[in-house]
């Protein structure tokens, strides 16, 4: 469990254009710089929002990362819900889901 470094990877990616360039040019080399488990590295390789959410990445860090990946707003919320359906409740931190995963916005309700 190296949630600290997983979050640090995303924190630096989110704020530093140099890290974003490295991410695009050679993700493997960037991953090497952080002490991550295989599960965490894979989640970053795949941009697996649902798993990263469940692993306990701070929601603000994850939200900025999802924006960096170009994920649309309601898709991003759904990916977190899917992560919970697949992997169970959030394992660390204060960004847990409190309800059953329903949408709290009129705009986000599925047709």
């Amino acid at each position, binding site marked *: 469990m190296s949630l600290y470094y997983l979050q640090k990877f995303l924190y630096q990616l989110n*704020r530093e254009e140099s890290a974003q360039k490295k991410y695009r040019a050679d993700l493997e080399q960037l991953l090497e710089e952080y002490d991550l488990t295989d599960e965490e590295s894979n989640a970053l390789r795949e941009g697996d929002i649902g798993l990263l959410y469940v692993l306990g990445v701070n929601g603000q860090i994850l939200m900025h990362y999802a924006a960096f990946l170009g994920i649309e707003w309601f898709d991003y919320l759904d990916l*977190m819900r899917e992560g919970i359906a697949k992997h169970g409740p959030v394992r660390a931190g204060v960004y847990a889901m409190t309800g059953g995963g329903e949408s709290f916005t009129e705009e986000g309700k599925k047709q």
Partner: protein
Amino acid sequence: MSLVYAGVLSHAPGITGRADLVKNTAKRDEFYAKLDIQRQEIEASGAEALIVIAAEHFANFFMSNMPAYCIGIGSEYEGPIEDPEWLRIPKTKVPGAADLGTRLTREVMKTVDVAYAEEWKFDHGIMVPLHFLTPKYDLPIIPVNINCQGPPLTPLHRAWAFGEALRRACDSVPEKIAVVGTGGISHWPATPDSGKINEPWDREFLDRLMRNDREALLGYDDMQTYRDAGQGGFEIRTFIAIAAAAGGQGELQFYTAELPIFAVGCTVARFSLDKAA
């Protein structure tokens, strides 16, 4: 000269980023109009610099070395760190106030051990307020952060003491200074519950805030806040610091829970600066 304006406003990224998704456009536009009134009030105050007491979201500070309080003393800043298409705010440079920020920091340090930073990247927590309050980015900004994200968090009575220290600092310099605090009240941002708002909790908090009732404001505890107002509720620290800095009663200019797409109860308020009021 001193503090010439104090107010609070919301900063959620949806306020700009999801403007076009809103169904209740009348309420949205009313909110934007109130923010523009706040801009006019700051302008009319003659403020030469604007302090923004924010609760940042991992743009500068991380658990590697997390200050409870930090004041920006840089001469220039940049933002947003977020994808500008997502936030709908283009990347820009923002002027700082290095000398003034340094003098204020020195004064605050007499009572609060504040950190300072010459480098600072703005995230939505500052860029959204600036987008409305100084849309040309021509007013020097002094960013201030209270850590509301990475627990352990500073206790509320220290946020109060910090606000008082900032007021003393502002009153000790010749410049005219405006200050805004920007946070959320109850909200569950960046979770699947985004859009959830506890309106009764918000109204109770705002009532305590507008009365500037120190004891009632410091009566919250983080466990209860987390349960009733979500992790976003930890950001009440910025509002509490403003109440302490202002000293007088507040006037709530806008609040609505009817824009959940913005993921927060949208708030605009100003304070009297008269401690006797």
